[in-house]
């Protein structure tokens, strides 16, 4: 079964091809579109197979587990790969209209493919060291994409981003080393199996917390989130949308993977820490956003606060809470990418991200206003959009687990999110544009390629409406994923008994 490796190979292949066609910008653009389209197709096929068979396991090089590197795709991994495909396609579409020539000359498209390969690799791998390698592939591509353009703000943001992420990688690597020293294996299923036999649980807790810190930094959880709002608003809009959609979620995914299948020995200790982290992440993110008056910075802080909800789903550690967390990840990737892309259109038209200089978009572009309102309401949790169900499940799980404090925080943060979205709505869309007679945006930006950008936004907005209207089947998918996470025996058996 070679389908499991396809989500890695496809972007790598198209990335290499775009590198070979370095001088041909049009060809690179077309490859960007075709490559992400093929990735999405492969991802959906993989998802279908996982849906039918429960798991897809591939032993690389014919070495049986736990000796070789294993790729193991369960429901959560398959869902994440599909979301990677959707986000990648949306970004490729958006980039058709919005990438300056200079960026294309310096390898924007090859880097984008490489980033997608790293993200997809993290989602399909079943080997902890291999996960580290895919993290690094993703990181190095993201470093280059972040600094593409070389402006002052980008450099300053990149230094913080690079430092914190390398620090997290070093902790991750150390934790992998200690785990290997304890258990003598790197295969996640084998680790999950052997970790129960270790008598020194204090040592296991230390390793668990090291993983928590490492993935917490990548997922921008409290208190190590500050690299994100310092850097995500600096690069090209397409790049920030790609980062906002996928990168932090890889950290969240790794937390979900490690703290259900592997570290389930001392839930009272590890997941109690996660509850606090979740609550503080939600709160500090949303309060940070309330103080901001720059479009993308507000959205960046909201990534932080939304990460809190996902971690809360994991931290409560009941079946319903995990379902809520998985549902939340699905919803969030789509919605966050859409919002960043909308900010790209307003930037293109008005030439600024500052709320005070923007305005009048409702009058001049009612279509765009609707396309903003859908993801904005979805983010705040309005029915019938996807965010309502995501928040509803997580909060319901909080009530059922009688975690009153953190549930109250989650509700409050939902309210403050609505406040932030209303602020953007009032400033960017509703109020008259400053400095113009008609109250419409001055519009010094060209309208070339706006069609591509609208297509990407409309497609993603349709996705969030689709998730909202099909809450039940999507819930069933999240339920399957959560069920697999909470019953690691099946994962372990599927990996260890699969024939190479």
């Amino acid at each position, binding site marked *: 079964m070679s389908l499991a490796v396809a989500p890695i190979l496809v972007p790598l292949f198209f990335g290499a091809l775009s590198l070979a066609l370095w001088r041909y910008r049009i060809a690179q653009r077309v490859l960007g579109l075709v490559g992400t389209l093929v990735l999405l197709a492969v991802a959906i096929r993989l998802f279908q197979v996982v849906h039918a068979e429960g798991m897809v396991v591939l032993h690389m090089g014919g070495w049986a587990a736990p000796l070789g590197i294993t790729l193991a795709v369960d429901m959560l991994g398959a869902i994440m790969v599909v979301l990677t495909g959707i986000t990648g396609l949306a970004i490729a579409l958006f980039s058709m209209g919005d990438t300056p020539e200079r960026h294309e000359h310096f390898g924007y498209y090859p880097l984008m493919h490489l980033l997608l390969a790293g993200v997809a690799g993290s989602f399909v791998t079943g080997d902890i060291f291999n996960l580290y390698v895919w993290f690094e592939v993703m990181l*190095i591509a993201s470093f280059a994409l972040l*600094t593409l353009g070389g402006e002052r703000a980008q450099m300053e*943001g990149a230094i913080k981003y690079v430092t914190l992420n390398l620090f997290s990688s070093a902790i991750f690597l*150390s934790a992998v080393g200690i785990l290997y020293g304890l258990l003598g294996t790197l295969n996640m299923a084998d680790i999950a199996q052997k970790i129960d036999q270790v008598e020194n649980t204090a040592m296991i807790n230390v390793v668990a917390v090291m993983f928590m810190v490492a993935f917490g930094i990548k997922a921008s959880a409290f208190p190590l989130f500050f690299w994100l709002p310092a850097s995500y608003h600096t690069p090209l809009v397409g790049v920030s949308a790609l980062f906002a959609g996928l990168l932090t979620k890889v950290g969240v995914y790794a937390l979900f993977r490690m703290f259900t299948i592997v570290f389930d020995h001392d839930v009272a200790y590890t997941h109690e820490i996660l509850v606090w982290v979740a609550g503080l992440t939600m709160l500090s993110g949303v309060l940070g956003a309330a103080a901001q008056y720059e479009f993308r910075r507000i959205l960046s802080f909201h990534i932080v606060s939304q990460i809190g909800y996902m971690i809360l789903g994991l931290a409560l550690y009941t079946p319903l809470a995990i379902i809520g967390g998985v549902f939340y990840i699905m919803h969030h990737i789509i919605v966050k990418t859409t919002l960043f892309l909308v900010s790209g259109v307003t930037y293109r038209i008005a030439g600024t991200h500052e709320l005070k200089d923007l305005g009048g978009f409702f009058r001049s572009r009612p279509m765009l206003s609707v396309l903003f309102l859908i993801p904005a309401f979805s983010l705040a949790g309005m029915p019938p959009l996807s965010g309502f169900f995501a928040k509803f499940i997580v909060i319901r799980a909080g009530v059922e687990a009688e975690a009153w404090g953190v549930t109250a925080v989650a509700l409050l943060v939902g309210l403050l999110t609505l406040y932030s979205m209303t602020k953007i709505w009032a400033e960017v869309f509703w109020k008259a544009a400053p400095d113009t007679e008609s109250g419409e945006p001055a519009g010094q930006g060209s309208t070339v390629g706006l069609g591509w950008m609208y297509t990407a936004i409309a497609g993603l907005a349709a996705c969030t409406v689709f998730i909202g209207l099909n809450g039940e089947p999507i819930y069933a998918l999240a339920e399957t994923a959560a069920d697999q996470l909470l019953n690691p025996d099946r994962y372990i058996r599927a990996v260890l008994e699969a024939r190479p």
Partner: protein
Amino acid sequence: METLMAYIVGAMFAAAVYMMLRRSIVKLVIGLMLLSNAANLLIFTVAGMRQGAPPLVPEGAEVPASAVADPLPQALILTAIVIAFGVLAFSVVLIHRAYEVVGTDDLDRMKDTDT
């Protein structure tokens, strides 16, 4: 030997964090270098050290004759070194470029993106 290595690894981590907390971006990168090397040494140490027992299988046999050193940690470290090398090369270029653009090597004066 393990005890000595443990102290060395600890000292390297401490030195790395100290360097990263300084204000100069050059020292920041030196800190990152120390950090990745400390992590590599940590893997080497915790995976168990064994002297004079190369993992070789005698001709005709299926398994080694006696207990041998574990070759896997070295493969891990080799991979990690290569990755760290690439990433650090990027960081060095980044701080150089940042110095050119911002005009200072002081982290405390790179606050444009914080508010």
